[in-house]
């Protein structure tokens, strides 16, 4: 709570503002836009806050802040996160968002919860991607299915599912090549991976997770849209929240594209991943 007060304290003590006047809303706009939620979303939220305050006859900052926080949490539409097994998670995202590290963290998360995990090195495109994932597999003591650089990633997935079924593995996590979402041929490859997985293991549960970098701006929206055009996207893993970036861009993604956040990442260590917590996410935005 102490951190949450920062923005409002600044308003109250530095700017000596206690009323909800235009100056207050200007400051609020700066705060919201600075979180990368986009100017349209920010204006919407401000309008809603105005309405709520008017309705509830709120005229001071202290009460407005409670309403604002509530509004920001509601808009995240967070649901309780539950996983069903056997589970096949395909991890997608553009280059450099932290896919491989996220896979390592998810592996740790599931093994900690007493689930067996298998990795599939489906990024056969980037130099040394397989090595990077293999290093993690060694460290985390899980098995990894891989082929050489330039191999067909769908065939890696095929092998992995065969092994998964044979050994009754709970969770298969598939790494895929990072791609700028404007590259259509790589998007096709993704569709193929999905088709192979569903065909080979129709009883499994499938989750396609997109990894988003919290420091990226409005382009994250375009990324989710583009991936959604070729495969179903079930959720977001929002990484790099350990920096000063707030990742507010998830607001338009959640509200317009209806894709929820599943996990958040906040560091390079394998334990730096947690199921999404709306409360702490909003507190950071209000810092």
């Amino acid at each position, binding site marked *: 709570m102490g951190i949450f007060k920062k923005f409002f304290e600044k308003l109250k003590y530095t700017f000596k503002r206690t009323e909800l006047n235009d100056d207050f809303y200007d400051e609020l706009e700066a705060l919201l836009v600075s979180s*990368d939620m986009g100017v349209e979303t920010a204006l919407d939220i401000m309008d809603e806050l105005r309405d709520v305050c008017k309705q509830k006859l709120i005229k001071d900052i202290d009460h407005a802040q409670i309403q604002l926080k509530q509004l920001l949490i509601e808009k995240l539409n967070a649901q309780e996160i539950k996983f069903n097994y056997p589970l096949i998670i395909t991890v997608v995202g553009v280059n450099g968002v932290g896919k491989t590290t996220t896979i390592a963290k998810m592996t740790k998360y599931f093994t900690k919860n007493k689930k067996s995990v298998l990795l599939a090195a489906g990024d056969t495109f980037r*130099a*040394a991607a397989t*090595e990077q994932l293999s290093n993690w597999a060694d460290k985390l003591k899980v098995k990894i299915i891989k082929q050489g650089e330039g191999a067909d990633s769908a065939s890696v997935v095929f092998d992995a599912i065969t092994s998964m079924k044979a050994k009754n593995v709970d969770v298969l996590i598939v790494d895929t090549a990072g791609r*700028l979402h*404007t590259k259509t041929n790589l998007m096709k490859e993704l569709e193929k991976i999905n088709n192979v997985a569903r065909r080979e293991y129709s009883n499994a549960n499938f989750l396609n997770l997109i990894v988003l970098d919290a420091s990226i*701006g409005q382009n994250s929206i375009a990324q989710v849209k583009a991936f959604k055009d070729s495969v179903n996207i079930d959720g977001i893993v929002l990484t*790099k929240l350990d920096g000063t970036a707030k990742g507010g861009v998830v607001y338009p993604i959640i509200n317009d594209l209806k894709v929820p956040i599943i996990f958040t990442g906040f560091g390079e260590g394998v334990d730096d991943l947690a199921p999404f917590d709306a409360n702490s996410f909003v507190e950071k935005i209000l810092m």
Partner: protein
Amino acid sequence: MALFSNLGERLNHIFSKMTKHGKLTSLEIKEAMREIRVALLEADVNYVVAKDFINKVSELALGEDILKSLTPTQQVIKIVRDQLTELMGGENQKLNVSPKPPTIIMMCGLQGSGKTTLCGKLALKLKKEGKKPILVACDIYRPAAIDQLKVLGKSIQIEVFERGTNNPVKTCKEAIDYANKFALDTLIIDTAGRLQIDEKLMDELKDIKKAINPTEILLVIDAMIGQEAVSVSKAFNDALDVSGVVLTKIDGDTRGGAALSIRSVIGKPIKFVGVGEKLTDLEPFYPDRMASRILGMGDVLTLIDKAQEAVDEKTAKEMERKFRENSFDLNDYIEQVNSLKKMGGLKSVLSMMPGIGGKMKQLENMIDEKALEKNKAIIQSMTAKERQNPDIINGSRRQRIAKGAGVQVSDVNNLLKQFNQSKELMKMMKNPKAYGGKMAMIKKLMGG
């Protein structure tokens, strides 16, 4: 807002209700600037940077004469673009070279910004320029980062110096000795990605800088970065006094407002942009193109400039006359094809049009540059009379022309059909002046 897909349309809408000529008034400017501010924020320009920029441009625009050839919308966009271009640093800036070899180039930036790939791209570029570069692997934290650099190095036949996970300062010093010994003139040092608030890792960069005094410290930033651009670039610059910036991943559909934020905050030149996944995909930074991109207007303005260069004034005047009199003939059609070629071909012209850039992949299959060449051959197989008056081309003439150009008669038919269609189109464009003289010129160029 959704009604108008780009800034130009939104501004047009505002100005349609107002005076068309004279001076820009403060009310017009205020309304226009509101839209421009939204455009900047949507392009991820930092909130504070956008605010300052708008204030500055509003002052400049007030009382500005509207040039005869431009509409008020174009005038405002021109002022904004010129300011954006100036702010992002007029001339393109080259890499610094040490007077006494080796030149040392050090990379720094956040995780995932594309440093390692950039090292490979830069090494390849320098090698092509006749330099003898060596890559130095100092990312000792990310698993397989050294492997990645080695794979890259191998693919472009450039040596990679590495000492495993040894202290990077020590590795750099040894690399310099190695370069001196084997007469390698440029060291490119890959460092680990780090958060700007990670003091320990920021200190490591300072230590490397102190120990080896790099000729060039390049801050590598993902062009898609959001509001964070300011705090990230400021922190790296405060710690290292970087000498330049490289924006990566500009080949996506990001508007790249970060370029303006970074430049405004640290004032360092953007030297290169990464435009693709291939190691040859590295280009110099063009502030004017970036300005148009940030405004979400493609490179319409660059296109105007290019059109101006490609078509000399006299030809343009002549074309305009023919256009008016509707006496445009097949000779002019060839002229158009040639102009298009001077502008870098139809593909390049299209890629600069707003809203098309990102869709180029799909378009590429549809555009057949060869067809243009084919048409040229067909026209060249015609007599002077036929070119001036295509209406006389009957069946037997068509057969002769097809034979001469080595094509089917149906190809000749298609060309004539296209030509007649574009003539019709030109007739329909009743008021070219409404778009300003320059736009009319482009329309003509695109007419074929």
